[in-house]
């Protein structure tokens, strides 16, 4: 289990088990066994990826090694730091090593800054608590730490809101490095970041581990991230490590079926198929957007609005044009904040437009009133990003699917409605439908919920689907299932699909055409293969350069 080249491990987890009490009473023990015998080790300067899907126990594993579990947890096993078992006497033996020797970058920590304290103050907090340096040297140390993570030292006096997302994540890493740890545990350090920033953070982590001889454990659900950063990886499934080894080995010769499945579901932008089917342009496309402008934020009084005063609103969408044909999938790709969601909201009529035109199947929809929109809603359906949020938790699957029918008065009898509902469920591969009709959303997995949400759109027999990051909240292994489903819908039923995504790999593998959006403009639009393999715009090239590949040999980080 030791690192491949025989280096002495600095940090080892041996046969770690974690149970959570789920409300045991005196008479009867009720608990879940989350971590079932994990063994890992990392040497100084080595980077190990811990990969698994949500709920597999990867976060629990590293929290246990820091002694940060809640009281409902019980733990067994050994955690060796330089050969010494720090778990032996619980909190008493873990406590002194926390942050001094083992530090952690928590998931989403970049959003957990105190907004009223400067970033420097918050980094210095770790120094104050652990008495690492003399009070007088704290300022200098904070500046030094910031420089280490690539932020100029003067920024210490700035407040978190003055930092970009990438800078905040860097500051979080600086915080973790405050006490010169030997081991750094990073839990999904790049999950909420854009590809370009993600690439920079991964490069930083790689650089730090090399320069500081830091043992790094990178916990993530994204194999591509691990492939680009780590030498070795461990794949976790349901509390166990199913496969562990050098990254190249895992990629070339995965032994366990789960590893293989994970790699298969991680799309590789450069392995995209050459030119999908040609779509002949038709006279009236399903969707035609011309010079669309959407502006936001304008706190304009109604008086100013009535007098038609120009406002100084920010333009979320600044003159874009799109076209979706029947049975075509167009991917709208861009970083967060580029205006892609505003575009879709405008097409749906959920935000007012400030200019341009949107034609759905030839009908101009800008400026339509609610009642006039209603009949059109059958034709345009939206699939939302988060299937945990988009279903009413008190509605059974049947009710969720029946609601659109009732709204539009489709299906005269209960029997007919049941038939339509069952067909839609079969369409999204939830068979037999009877098994799912009575279930509540919390009795379904994430992928199933997204399928139900899609089925709820299909009952209306739409011609155009708008999909807002339809898989980004789902586990990797079920993503391809949902994407294949969308692919089939357009091929079999001739639907047009406009898919928003931040992920070029997904777009390249599924869409016919890609439109790349940046700061409210579409900078490049064309057939998927051309955009990925022969980008013309600089921004597209930047995006492409940052996309991590699951192939560890195609290393572009740094």
């Amino acid at each position, binding site marked *: *289990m030791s690192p491949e080249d025989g280096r002495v491990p600095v940090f080892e987890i*041996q*046969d770690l*088990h974690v*149970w*959570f009490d789920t409300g045991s009473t005196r008479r009867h023990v009720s608990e*879940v066994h*989350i971590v079932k*015998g994990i063994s890992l080790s990392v040497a100084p300067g080595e980077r190990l990826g811990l990969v698994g899907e*949500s*709920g*597999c*126990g*990867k*976060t*629990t594993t590293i*929290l246990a090694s820091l*002694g940060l*579990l*809640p*009281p409902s*947890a*019980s*733990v*067994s*096993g*050994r955690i060796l730091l330089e050969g010494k078992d720090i778990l032996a006497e*619980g*909190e008493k033996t873990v406590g002194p090593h926390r942050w001094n020797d083992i530090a952690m970058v928590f998931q989403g920590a970049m959003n957990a800054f105190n907004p009223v304290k400067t970033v420097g103050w918050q980094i210095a907090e770790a120094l104050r608590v652990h008495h690492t340096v003399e009070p007088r040297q704290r300022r200098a140390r904070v500046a030094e730490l910031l420089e280490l993570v690539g932020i100029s030292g003067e920024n210490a006096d700035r407040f978190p809101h003055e930092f970009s997302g990438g800078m905040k994540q860097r500051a979080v890493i600086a915080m973790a490095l405050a006490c010169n740890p030997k081991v750094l545990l990073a839990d999904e350090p790049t999950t909420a970041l854009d590809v370009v920033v993600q690439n920079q953070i991964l490069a930083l982590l790689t650089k730090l581990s090399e320069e500081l001889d830091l043992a790094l454990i990178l916990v993530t659900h994204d194999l591509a991230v691990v492939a680009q950063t780590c030498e070795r990886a461990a794949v976790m499934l349901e*509390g166990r490590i199913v496969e562990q080894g050098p990254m190249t080995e895992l990629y070339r010769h995965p032994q366990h079926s789960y590893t293989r499945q994970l790699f298969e579901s991680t799309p590789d932008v450069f392995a995209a198929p050459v030119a999908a089917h040609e779509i002949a342009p038709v006279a009236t496309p399903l969707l035609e957007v011309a010079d669309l402008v959407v502006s936001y934020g304008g706190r304009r009084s109604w008086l100013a609005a009535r007098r038609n005063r120009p406002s100084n609103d920010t333009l979320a969408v600044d003159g874009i044009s799109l076209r979706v044909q029947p049975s075509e999938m167009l991917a709208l790709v861009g970083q967060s904040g580029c205006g892609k969601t505003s575009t879709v909201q405008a097409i*749906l009529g*959920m935000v007012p437009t400030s200019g341009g035109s949107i034609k759905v199947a030839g009908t101009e929809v800008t400026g339509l009133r609610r009642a006039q*929109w*209603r009949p059109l*809603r*059958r034709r345009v*359906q*939206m699939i*939302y*990003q*988060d299937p945990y*949020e*988009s*279903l*009413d*938790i*008190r509605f059974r699957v049947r009710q969720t699917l029946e*609601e*659109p029918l009732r*709204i*539009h008065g489709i299906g005269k009898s209960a029997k007919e409605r049941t038939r339509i509902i069952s067909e839609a469920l079969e369409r999204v591969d939830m068979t037999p439908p009877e098994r799912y009709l009575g279930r509540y959303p*919390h009795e*379904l*997995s994430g992928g*199933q919920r997204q399928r139900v*949400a899609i089925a*709820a759109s299909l009952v209306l027999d739409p011609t155009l689907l708008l999909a807002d990051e339809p898989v980004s909240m789902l586990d990797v*292994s*079920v993503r391809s*299932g949902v994407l294949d489903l969308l692919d089939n819908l357009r091929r079999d039923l001739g639907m047009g699909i406009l898919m928003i995504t931040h992920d070029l790999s997904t777009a390249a593998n599924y869409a016919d055409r890609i439109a790349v959006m940046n700061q409210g403009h579409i900078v490049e639009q064309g057939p998927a293969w051309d955009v990925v393999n022969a980008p013309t715009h600089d921004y597209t090239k930047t995006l492409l350069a940052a996309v991590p590949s699951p192939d560890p040999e195609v290393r572009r980080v740094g």
Partner: protein
Amino acid sequence: MSNTSIDAGELVPEVEVSHGLWVTLRAVLRQPSAIVGLVIVGLFVISAVFAPLLEPYSTTNASCGVFDAPSAAHWFGCDDGGIDVLSLVIIGGRVSMLVGLFATVIAMVLGAGVGLLSGYFGGATDTILMRITDYFLVIPQIVLMIVIAAVWGPSLSHVVIVIGILMWTGTARVIRAQVKSLRERVYIKRVESLGASHTRIIVRHILPQVGPLLVANAVLAITVAIFTETALAFLGLSDPTAITWGTIMEHAFDRAAISAGAWWAVVPAGMAVALFTVGCYLIGRSIEDSLNPRLKVSYLSPRSWAMRPLVGRGPDAL
């Protein structure tokens, strides 16, 4: 992909706030304070419903001497007219509770209506409704009651209306806040993009979500209503002929019960108000608590995670 009944990745079991009355009800019944509250309120309700059977003496005819002290025959003594105080308190509870109930119904209907419309539509609707709410919030009820009693004459229905009209503001603000946040939820957006009407969204999706909150508010409002009724009655602004907990005390004061040393003519009715108020409060609070289970999860507890002996082979086998 098939089973997510236990989401092992979450350290804190993610408890969804408020879904459905039934779930809430079960969470409420797990709290001892709710049981105590329910028993208190239950006893009061039973005694009010079966008052004619339970009252030991008549409340219209004298059954003992003026200001007789409590005795085995008359547990709470007698008032100035030689009427049994226990019987008065039992009968008085009927009207007091009815007044509380009706006033609460008025307040809840108004409050929920204003809160839902204000939170759902936002914008100008919100501004106008909330300014009206502010206006009602600052009307002093005693003064308004004195005016109404002077103009329309003192009566129970006026008490109900005044309390109801002045009490809805708090509910409206709480409901508005909740609806405003629900309005931004994705599933509401999804239903809206399906083409659902406002009525449908409010009735089918939003109202059930705020239902438990409304119940918690209503139970707490009954407390305030009964307390206010008692206060108004005590000041002689209610119907003087009706027997309520407030008029019993007012009457006793009028007849100088205190200077006669007959504390028993005043205290039992006051105790009844206090006890009923506490009962409602306990129920209301436990509903509120169970709507917000996050309050109970604490990482800062002095207890820590536990170590267990090694499982199976132990580390040596590695």
